[in-house]
């Protein structure tokens, strides 16, 4: 059972790291602010979600597991908000266009 859980953890965390890597490549390679943001948010939301999922398989205490999920949800909220704000100011037509 613990072997199966460990395998699931390795799978999920590896997948998460892959999304982080892809997001970082996107940040470095894509041509402008909007596309870079696009790459970054997908990577962080999904990457962090998968890492959290992987860690959940290792967590026996319910409260700690809920904390992990809360961390992910708060990051989603903060990430989405900040991305919108940066994108609003990075648009070629400006914030009010």
């Amino acid at each position, binding site marked *: 059972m613990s072997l199966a859980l460990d395998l699931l953890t390795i799978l999920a965390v590896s997948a998460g790291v892959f999304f982080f890597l892809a997001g970082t490549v996107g940040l470095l390679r894509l041509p402008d602010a909007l596309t870079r943001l696009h790459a970054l948010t997908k990577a962080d939301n999904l990457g962090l979600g998968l890492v959290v999922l992987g860690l959940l398989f290792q967590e026996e205490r319910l409260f700690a597991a809920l904390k992990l999920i809360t961390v992910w949800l708060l990051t989603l*909220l903060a990430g*989405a908000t900040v991305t919108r704000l940066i994108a609003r100011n990075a648009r070629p037509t400006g914030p009010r266009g």
Partner: protein
Amino acid sequence: MVFDIGLTLLVVAVAVWTIAARDTFAAVIGFVAFGLLLALAWVRLAAPDVALTEAALGSGVTGVVLLGASTRLRHAEISAADKKPGAMLRAAAAVLCTVVSAGLAAIVLVLPHPAPTLAPQAAANMAATGLGNPVTAVLMAYRAIDTLLETVVLLLALLGLWSLTPDPFWGGLPGRRHHDDPDGVLTFAAQLLVPVGILVGIHIFWVGSVAPGGEFQGATILAAMWILAAMAGLVDAPPVSRRWLRLILVAGPAVFFTIGLAGFAMAGGFLAYPESHAKLLIVMIEVPVTLSIAATLALLVAGPPDRMPQQ
């Protein structure tokens, strides 16, 4: 080990990049990243209390203050761009920095091994404080006077900032009034996040007695929540002349000092607690101190008063 070496190299690289960055704004971003990496390093050194403080205060609040400063300095920097300091001055700065860095490195290298430590005594006497976190025991009991002075220093910093107020605005409102789309994403995030953040701030403050956390970290989160609500235009800063605001600002140091003086009568020394009531007294100090620090930090970020209340 590989991770630690990588982290150390990254910390040094980001520090060098921050110093080398030409643009002030970019340098501030570098400084924030540096602070977050440093927080990770503290976690690796098994010092989560320091890591929390570094992330919240060193990187977070200081980063926001520096961002504000870089925006205000933009005009001055453009006009000063062609005036470079002379070769002598730059050489002197380089020599001075090198001497300080080399001195610090030498001190670290000549430390005896194992380093002298008071950790066993701190852990052995923790029961007398009623606390479960040795770091909080040091901050609130063994070395409470340092913490008292820290709260006073924060207040002095705020007074220094307020002394920059232009005469017509003295007693007015700090910072710009923010407006944002009431249906926009920032307003939504502030409405959703602020209640959660206030809860997290109180939690971090409260668990400080038994786990990593404490009043400085909790207060920083509370201040950040106020800043977020202000940026979304949900709340406005109060005029700094308000009596209740001044009372909140001095409540922490004042209560701290009063209980410290009462220590003479109760336990025979400044900031000494009678063993039976140590925990209660520490909490009585921590609650107003947390409020004072939160208000001070929020006002430090808001800046000097620069407008009067609208009639």
